[in-house]
């Protein structure tokens, strides 16, 4: 879908056109599911549903329809962390920090890495590795200072390698 078409679709959905809302839902659901899946894990469908409800309830507040994916991403990540936390499934993280970018274990068994991280750290990993965002943007989205993201990532290299190197 071209950007002008997408902007028009968002505007129609903002006006309450249910068929446009449905089409936008079809467009956004896979994206939101890709973000919520790795953060909320077993609660991924619940997180995706909650995130999409927040997105569609607040759609009229989106001033820049062209920015719909970035706007949806911020909501999805926040909702995924919240749902994962409130589900009470979060195990005490064995990996206290996020593994370094490009670490071969990420590719080898991402699910195991995610299982061993806290939801907030999964969110850092998703935003950095899946979405390709820089530390400043990740910090902004998660409402933590860039320095915190940087130090987490720096310390992560050691702790992650130690955990995997046993």
């Amino acid at each position, binding site marked *: 879908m071209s950007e002008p078409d997408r902007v028009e679709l968002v505007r129609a959905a903002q006006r309450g056109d249910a068929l446009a*809302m449905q089409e936008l*839902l079809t467009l956004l659901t896979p994206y939101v599911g*890709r973000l*919520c899946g790795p953060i909320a894990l077993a609660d*991924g*469908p619940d997180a*995706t549903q909650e995130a999409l409800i927040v997105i569609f*309830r607040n759609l009229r507040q989106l001033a820049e329809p062209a920015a719909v994916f970035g706007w949806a991403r911020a909501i999805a990540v926040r909702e995924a962390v919240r749902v994962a936390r409130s589900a009470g499934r979060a195990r005490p993280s064995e990996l206290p920090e996020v593994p370094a970018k490009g670490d071969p274990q990420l590719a080898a068994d*991402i699910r195991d890495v995610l299982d061993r991280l806290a939801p907030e750290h999964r969110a850092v990993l998703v935003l950095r590795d899946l979405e390709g965002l820089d530390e400043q943007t990740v910090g902004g989205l998660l409402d933590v200072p860039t320095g915190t993201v940087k130090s987490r990532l720096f310390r992560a290299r050691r702790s992650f390698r130690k955990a995997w190197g046993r």
Partner: protein
Amino acid sequence: MTPNWPVADLDPVRRLAVLAEAIPGAVFAEDVLDAPFDQVWAVAGDLENALPALLTDVRSMRFVEHDGERLVAEARSHLGLRDRFDVVLRPGWCLMQSGRLIGGMAAVADGDRTRFGFLGGLRLPGTRLAGPALRRLGRPIGRRFLRRLGERVAEVTG
């Protein structure tokens, strides 16, 4: 090697529930019907026959245009009112909208049974303000629709 990230999916019934939450005053009802998906959708997806049988206000429904999964349907009420609906219809999903009304159905297989969702809503000025009251008033419509659908599926499948 690229990591194989887990992805969360949202089935059609959950998608319909999202729309219902976003449409002011919309009614949503969900139930598990004791019949396989194919049998349930054969009844529910046959809109021209199903809707007059399942909704008390609808006397007839007729497709007047057809383009893939996009359709245009004309409905008539028992009072003689006419409404023209834009419809999206595919297996497990139906959403329809006129100038005044929104309707939706979604179904997903649940083993040998079927999880089914119903959505009904108004497109009138003031529905945003009256949303909570409309939801309360409309709840029986959704429950009745699902009960009748279950009965009709049982009749058809014997």
